[in-house]
């Protein structure tokens, strides 16, 4: 879960990481008032995307009047595909230097990794590899002083900056662990009149750990359907095509999409019904697929944890209760396969044996149904 910059900065402040003075505003009046309090201000649109400056989402002013005007323009506007619901109004820092500091998870090393660079303010991907200090954190000992010293020594920071960055590293790591973060990123970490301050905040929380992060604000970046799927514990992504897809397992769902494409078709969605989805969840998943009004539907089940009879029952139940107005192709093999096929036969469907036969048929049916 991505959270907004202002939320990230509130968390930074809570953990003792210096941030610019300021706070979030949801109305032009608030923006004006905060500007009146802090003087020279920057007004930053709060969206779940970077590169807001270039898109016109960041404004500078020292005038409360102008701050109101800017906020009125930004609030409710759409920037890089996101609606702006709030702006962060904060002091405009005198920036002497811009650094980069982040902690994320290294998949290969299976541990947290610190990324730091004295070249901040741009995307870290654009910083040459040799200017990035990369340091793995041993999960059993955490962010010890010797590590923070090593990092600042590799960055060749002057002593008074080094001490501040060492302290920030300890706090940032504490936050990273305690909040189940996937990423905490400060870019830029600025040097302003000798003080080191987090001028931006990018924080991503592990979705799978949200159950124990009850104190965090919840930020929704999904569509209505995706939200519903999420509540059902399903992985759902809206796509541009016209064939509804439901399969069990992310890999096989992707493979289904690939196979549809191979035969000239295109998927209306990605829906991974998961390994062990119940009959009820499966029925709800089907509703999600139908909600996109596809021209045809392909259901591709290779039963392992998922049992074919559960899926067949779910399908039969939805078909009986609400009817299914589009052609459906089902591929059903695996655990309890014969039982499932029997159930499908009762509602007039003959299941396929292989994915490619089913996909080919689905593409044909969708084309015919245009």
């Amino acid at each position, binding site marked *: 879960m991505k959270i907004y910059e202002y939320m990230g900065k509130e968390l930074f402040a809570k953990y003792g990481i210096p941030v610019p003075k300021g706070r979030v505003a949801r109305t032009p009046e608030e923006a004006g008032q905060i500007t009146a309090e802090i003087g020279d201000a920057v007004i930053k649109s709060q969206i779940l995307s970077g590169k807001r400056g270039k898109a016109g989402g960041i404004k500078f002013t020292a005038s409360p009047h102008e701050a109101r005007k800017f906020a009125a323009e930004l609030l409710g506007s759409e920037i890089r595909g996101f609606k702006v619901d709030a702006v962060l109004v904060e002091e405009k820092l005198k920036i002497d230097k811009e650094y980069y500091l982040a902690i994320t998870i290294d*998949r290969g090393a299976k541990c947290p990794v610190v990324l730091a660079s004295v070249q901040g303010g741009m995307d870290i991907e654009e910083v040459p590899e040799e200017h990035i200090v990369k340091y793995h954190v041993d999960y059993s000992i955490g962010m010890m002083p010797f590590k923070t010293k090593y990092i600042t020594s590799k960055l060749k920071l002057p002593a008074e900056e080094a001490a501040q960055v060492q302290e920030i590293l300890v706090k940032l790591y504490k936050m990273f662990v305690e909040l189940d973060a*996937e990423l905490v990123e400060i870019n830029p970490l600025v040097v302003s009149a000798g003080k080191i301050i987090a001028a931006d905040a990018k924080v991503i929380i*592990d979705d799978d750990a949200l159950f124990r992060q009850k104190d965090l604000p919840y930020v929704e970046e999904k569509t209505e359907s995706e939200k519903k799927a999420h509540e059902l514990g399903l992985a759902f992504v809206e796509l541009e095509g016209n064939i509804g897809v439901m399969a069990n397992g992310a*890999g096989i769902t*992707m493979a289904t999409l690939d*196979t549809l494409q191979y035969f000239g078709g295109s998927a209306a969605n990605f829906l991974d019904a998961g390994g062990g989805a119940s009959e009820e969840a499966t029925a709800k998943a089907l509703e999600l697929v139908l909600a996109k009004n596809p021209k045809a539907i392909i259901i591709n089940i*290779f039963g392992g944890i998922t049992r074919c009879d559960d899926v067949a029952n779910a399908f039969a139940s939805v078909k009986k209760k609400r009817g299914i107005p589009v052609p459906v192709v089902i591929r059903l093999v695996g655990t309890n396969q014969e039982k499932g096929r029997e159930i499908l036969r009762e509602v007039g469907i003959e299941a396929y044996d292989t994915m490619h036969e089913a996909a080919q048929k689905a593409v044909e049916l969708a084309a015919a149904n245009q």
Partner: protein
Amino acid sequence: MSIFVDENTKVLIQGITGNQGAFHARQMVAYGTKVVAGVSPGKGGQKVDDIPVYNSVKEAMEHHQIDASILFVPAKFAKDGAFEAIHAGVKLLILIPEHIPLHDAMAIMNFARAKGTTVIGPNTFGVVSSGKCKIGIMPNQYFVPGPVGVVSRSGTLSYEIVGSLAAAGLGTSTVVGLGGDRVVGLNFIDVLARFEKDPGTEVIVLVGEIGGTAEEEAADYISKHISKPVLAYLAGKSAPPGKRMGHAGAIIERGMGTFEGKVKALNAVGVEVATLTFEVPELVSKVLLKKAM
């Protein structure tokens, strides 16, 4: 021959009295796996079919030799269960649950490393040495003995491919599911190294998908250390960038882990890449035929 597990591997099932645990206990026994004990706190003394249930892994290990444990518990309790197994000295641990918090996964891998435990998963279908021992949730019928070693990041996709191999008369030596999560115990390289040394494996099929850099790293390793023929199947050719497709792994971000990049890396080291599952048996047959000549 096989890797990780064989006909002598003695298996413990953590969470055996749950729905999934009990169902798959029976499936594993049906496959021929030596399931010697189960654990379910507070259910010690019960039995699941003929399998004795204990309150703790420690207790189970006092009564049985345990070579491997498989975990069927809800994601939020997985860390506790995994720690319990590692702490008790289990040397091979298969973590079935998905949605285990990433920090829990890191903690598990860290503790496992300190104690010398091999972890497969989380979010894996498990490992099976065909005809000998299945520790996982894969459907039994497709895993018939043969010369093909399969290592995969995706469950059902593996069944699809192993199924199509079996349908073509091509059996498998060992099939290993790495797990679909971002932090997992084994990567392609660990398993490739084992297959290379396994006399029972003649050809290796690597089942990958978009996202991450595991396939690229595997390609690099193959060029340096693997003498056996390797084939790959990759899912996600049609996936739009930036969208997370179910698996935490299946996300393309920051220009890394694209379908094209992976194909390029694999082709460059002589690994042919299938993009449709039914192509895999054809490629394998071709390679085996070539080897036989």
